[in-house]
Structures are given as C-alpha cells and as structure tokens.
C-alpha cells in the first residue's frame, strides 16, 4: 500500500482537529482536539518511518506520545484550576488578563 494513503488520512485527521480547536468553546473538547492533531502527526511519522525503511520515525512518534501525556496532565490540572475558581470550562470566559 502506497505511503501517501496514510499521510492523506493523517492530514484529514489533523484538519478535523484544527476544526475542533477553532469551533468548540469547551476547554476540554479543545484539548481533545489538540490530542487528535498530535495523533495525526504520529500517524504521519509512522508512515514515513515505513516509507524510508528506518525506525527513527517510530522513535519520534514514541517521544511525541510521552510529551503528549505530560501535556495532558498539566493541561487538565490547569483546566480544573480554572473551573474551581470560575465554575466554568468555557474558553471565552477567562478573559481576566485582557485589560
């Protein structure tokens, strides 16, 4: 199977993730969309690793997964902190720093 099929699929998933980030207002859903984008990039890495016949792409995808896990931990802690003080997970509301 030609590698471009996987890369096109990864592009589609990445685009849907972008759509979610731009469209949704719930911070948790925005965050899940970011996770989807990371996964789409991982799929491209894995497909390229196979295309080039080297395992380096898979190692990078592995590191991306670890960093994504760390990012989820900190991000969800921040969302919980904001929810605790503002009683809302809406990304439009925390505009305290605007003025």
């Amino acid at each position: 199977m030609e590698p471009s099929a996987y890369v096109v699929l990864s592009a589609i998933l990445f685009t849907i993730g972008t759509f979610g980030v731009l469209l949704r207002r719930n911070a948790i859903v925005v965050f899940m969309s970011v996770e989807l984008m990371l996964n789409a990039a991982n799929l491209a890495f894995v497909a390229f690793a196979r295309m080039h016949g080297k395992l380096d792409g898979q190692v990078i995808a592995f590191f991306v997964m670890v960093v994504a896990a760390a990012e989820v931990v900190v991000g969800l802690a921040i969302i919980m902190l904001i929810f605790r003080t503002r009683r809302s997970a809406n990304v439009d509301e925390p505009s305290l720093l605007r003025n």
Partner: protein
Amino acid sequence: MSAVASLAPLVAQAAQTSDSVGEQTAFWICGTLAVVGALGLVLSHRAVHSALFVALTMINLAILYAANSAPFLGLVQVIVYTGAVMMLFLFVLMIVGVDASDSFAETIKAQRGWTALLVLGFAALLIAGIVTGMSEMTSIGLDEANSANGGNVQGLAFLIFDRYLLAFQVVAAVLIAAALGALVLAHREHLQPRRTQADLSRDRFKSGQHPGVLPNPGVMSSTNAIGNPALLPDGTPSQESIPLPLRVQTAEAASAVEEPRAIERGEE
C-alpha cells in the same frame, strides 16, 4: 484491549507482504472509523460523547500503527491514549460536570462559516501537496530494519538507548516535572484553619440554643403518651418536650374551638 493485542501481530503479518488485500481492508475500515470518531469529537454536543469518540479514533489509529509495522507503538497507543489519557479526560469531565454541554452560540460573528472555509482550504492544500508530492514514492518497508536486531521492540530499544539517549532522558525529566506541576496546580491551600470538633462544640454553646437533648414527652408524668408534656424536676410541664408538629396541631385545634365562640359572640 486484548482483542487489539491479538489482532496486532495478524495485521502486522498482513502488512509484511506489500500491497496486500489485508492491509487495504484494515486501512479502509480503520481509517473510516478514525475519521468518524474525529468528526464525532468535533460535532457532538456533550463533552463525554466527544471523549468516547476520541477513544474510538485512538483505537483505530493503534490498529493502523500495527499495520505500518509498528506493533510496539500500536500497543503503547492503546495503553497510553485509550487507557490513561482518555480515562484522565473522563475523570476530569466527571469533576467539571458531565452536563456541562457546550453552547454552540457564536461569540465571534460568522465564526463557523469562516472556520469551515479556512479548514476546507487547509485540507485541500495539504492533501493536494501530499498527493502531488508523494505520488511517485513507494515504501521501502520495515522488514529489514525490524529483523536487524531481532524485532520491532529490540530495534526501537537500540535506537532509544543509543542514538536518542539524551532525548529519552530529557523526556523523562519533562514527565517528572509535569507530574509535580500537576500536583502543585491541583493542590488547594486552606484559606482558614480547619474547624475541629472542639470549635464546632464551642459554637453550639455560644449560639444560645439548648445545647443538649430535649426532654422526652411523658417523662415523670402520669402517662407517657406523645402529646403529654414531661414534668420538669420542679413539677412544671415542659412544652419543649412535645414534638413541634404536635404542638402546632394542638394550638390549631384550640384556636378552631375558640373561633366559633367568637362568631357566636359577634352575632350576639
């Protein structure tokens, strides 16, 4: 999860022979399901449904990794993403509120239309670039690289602990820092000192209300019926010993008896 684990070697085996029918089938089924899950994430109103759709996408991506001769990454994907990350998301959703459904009201004028336009343009650009740029390319395949060190896991281990050792250590530090950061962020300081049982007891006596148990009805009285007030040590009946509803009922009955007399008097 065990189903995916047992499926991974099969799919990987199917991927060994390039351009096999098995891989085509896996790609079209899992790719379609992954896109469906991604669309469900964006379009479902409730955040919990979004989380479950993402889990669907993650599992299908795991199968696709396995089909791309990356069985280790496929299993890591299932364990880390569907196992840990999505469950973390669901836990946070449980705390933040499952019913916190998203409002689709536009805060920026015509945001949805512009977003759709931009995203479609972005997708068209990406896909056109990929299709024109990669149409001639063929896959070398990972059979050789995987078998060089005895398998996919061994090959990855040789890379991680040799060429990418520094990156591996930095990533480990990042992970520890993130865990500590989450602990610090989620920690809640007490604004006031915690109220002990002694404080609560002191408050109860300070409020001026009867601090102890009220006397039971009928105690030291001629009968122990519930409407019969208890006699205090000095012989006076205690109205507090009668339950409040009964006290109200007796008062109402007394006034009802009083009223007709008043009317009679008024007629006179």
